[in-house]
């Protein structure tokens, strides 16, 4: 698959890079459709989109094997899709349909798909870290890897520290991925997070922890692949702090007025889709080829939502 013309220093070939661009584009369009569906009233409740974060799920998924598992958060649609869950079943869960991943029982904050190694999306901050830590216990000595994703806000939670210490003490094969997007809901991270970067908090447990450019899928992939290789040998947990940004509000109709002027625009210049596209062009892949991702993504999203919305709601069967 890895044809000539690698996409730069990442060690990722152009074909693979193109596939990752496609996946990121797909996730972006999927999330946009979630928001549009939410505004149309088709997605009930609330939503937490990963727009801006796409390099993380995609770079990570490419580094995992089919037996590895991931525990993610309410902002985990991208991970669920990147791991290979049926997009129609994801859309169906978000819209409360019987064919949804969880049969409509969980909704956007609880997406679960064991068949694709998604042991859960967790609505409680820290829950994903604990779930992956426990999976790490099951996986000791097997070569399998458990991944937890979580946000910068989670880095102030008891779960965070207890799980890091626990995983370090027992040298569990757990990859901790902090998706650091500068905000926990409406609160800037520096305002509630003492000390320096979050990776330092992992390092204090002797955990190998690295700051990663979360807007560059090559960087995420490279670090995730190295981490996974290391984890398979049983050397204990690895922590990656991926710096990223959400281009949208925290949830639903949050207008994100807490952002300083210009911040969004600055990060948008490093949009992971643009970074990947530019890298491909630099590597000689023509725009006619990279441009195809767009159409494919839109069509897949359209189909997923069409299938979901045409499918029936679950039948209540209440016994009190």
């Amino acid at each position, binding site marked *: 698959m890895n044809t000539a013309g690698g996409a730069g220093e990442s060690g990722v070939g152009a074909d693979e890079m193109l596939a990752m661009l496609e996946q990121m584009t797909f996730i972006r369009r999927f999330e946009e459709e979630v928001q549009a569906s939410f505004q149309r009233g088709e997605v009930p409740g609330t939503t937490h989109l990963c727009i801006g974060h796409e390099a993380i799920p995609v770079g990570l998924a490419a580094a995992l094997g089919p037996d590895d598992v991931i525990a993610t958060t309410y902002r985990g649609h991208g991970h669920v899709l990147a791991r290979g869950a049926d997009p129609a079943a994801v859309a169906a869960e978000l819209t409360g349909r019987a064919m949804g991943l969880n049969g409509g029982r969980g909704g956007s904050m609880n997406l679960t798909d064991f068949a694709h190694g998604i042991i859960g999306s967790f609505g409680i901050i820290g829950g994903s870290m604990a779930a992956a830590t426990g999976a790490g216990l099951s996986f000791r000595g097997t070569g399998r890897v458990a991944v937890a994703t979580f946000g910068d806000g989670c880095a102030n939670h008891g779960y965070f520290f207890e799980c890091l210490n626990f995983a370090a003490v027992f040298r569990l094969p757990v990859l901790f991925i902090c998706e650091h997007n500068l905000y926990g809901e409406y609160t800037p991270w520096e305002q509630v997070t003492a000390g320096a970067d979050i990776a330092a908090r992992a390092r204090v447990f002797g955990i190998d922890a690295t700051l990663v450019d979360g807007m560059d899928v090559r960087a995420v992939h490279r670090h995730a692949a190295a981490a996974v290789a290391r984890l398979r040998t049983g050397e204990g947990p690895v922590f990656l702090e991926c710096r990223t940004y959400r281009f949208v509000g925290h949830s639903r109709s949050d207008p994100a007025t807490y952002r300083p002027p210009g911040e969004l625009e600055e990060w948008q210049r490093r949009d992971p889709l643009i970074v990947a596209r530019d890298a491909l062009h630099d590597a000689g892949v023509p725009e006619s080829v990279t441009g195809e991702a767009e159409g494919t993504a839109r069509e897949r999203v359209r189909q997923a939502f069409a299938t979901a919305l045409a499918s029936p709601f679950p039948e209540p069967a209440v016994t*009190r």
Partner: protein
Amino acid sequence: MTEFRAAIRQALIDELTADPSVLVFGEDVAAAGGVFTVTKGLQEQFGSTRVFDTPISELAITGAAFGAAVTGSRPVIEIMFGDFMALAMDSLINQAAKWRWVSNGQTAVPLVVRTTVGAGARFGPVHCQIPGTWMQNIPGLKVVCPSNPADAYGMLRAAIRDDDPVVFMEHKRLYLDEGELTDAPVELGTARVVRRGGDVTIVSVMKGVGDALVAAEALATQDGIEAEVIDLRSFRPLDVATVVASVEATGRLLCVEEGARTGGWAAGLIGQVAADALGSLDDVAILCTPDHPVPFSPPLEDAALPGPEDIRAMVRERLGGA
């Protein structure tokens, strides 16, 4: 007319104004004014020493509230969703609830935990629970839950002035309800008869009280049944006496609970009524949610939650179609 959430804000403003030892803190309560905008504007008005945003650290928030409460402050904290109370309970159960008694009265523990509870907003199974029952068995704690703006205002003020820790639950489907506020003080732990009627007593809390009133009107106009409706207003203390007094007249008791039957407040209330006034009871019934988590999908969630029609149907069934 004042919205329920504005009533809460007003109570906070009035107590922050009246007593400089009152503090308000929690996740996203200050700059952003809370996820349901209940606390909007408080930080501007009272400054960031008295109203502030915290890290996502439920243990520390609640534990710090305890430490602040025993050293002269009157903290009012927010645990964003009631489901997250599980992360805060150690401090409430093992410290806040115990310290006044265990210290032999050396200290009061005047803290309030505000938290948003209840289903019906399509938030799925871990953003909709009502944690009142989790803490109903803890001596030293008060657990209260208004059903209307006037009570929200009066009870929150009473809670902030109370010398014991109070868990104050706000049902998210009430936030936009409107009503008149009054300055009449509310004694925490007292139920209130919100509708008089001689045929059956319906007891509920929060959202369920409005549902019961709707059902009672339908029963009166369409079925010729006069229901007495009681707003329990508090899980702990539990005002058994007010319910007993009603049941002595009606003989029939229906408890409507947004929660599971086993371990719920409804069964417990009926048990205490039975222990105190078994002879007055001709019939008792529980209308509750099914024994599984609250589902996300709208038809599933709607079917799981008891509403006015379910209440009316159950009363009719229990009163033999009277």
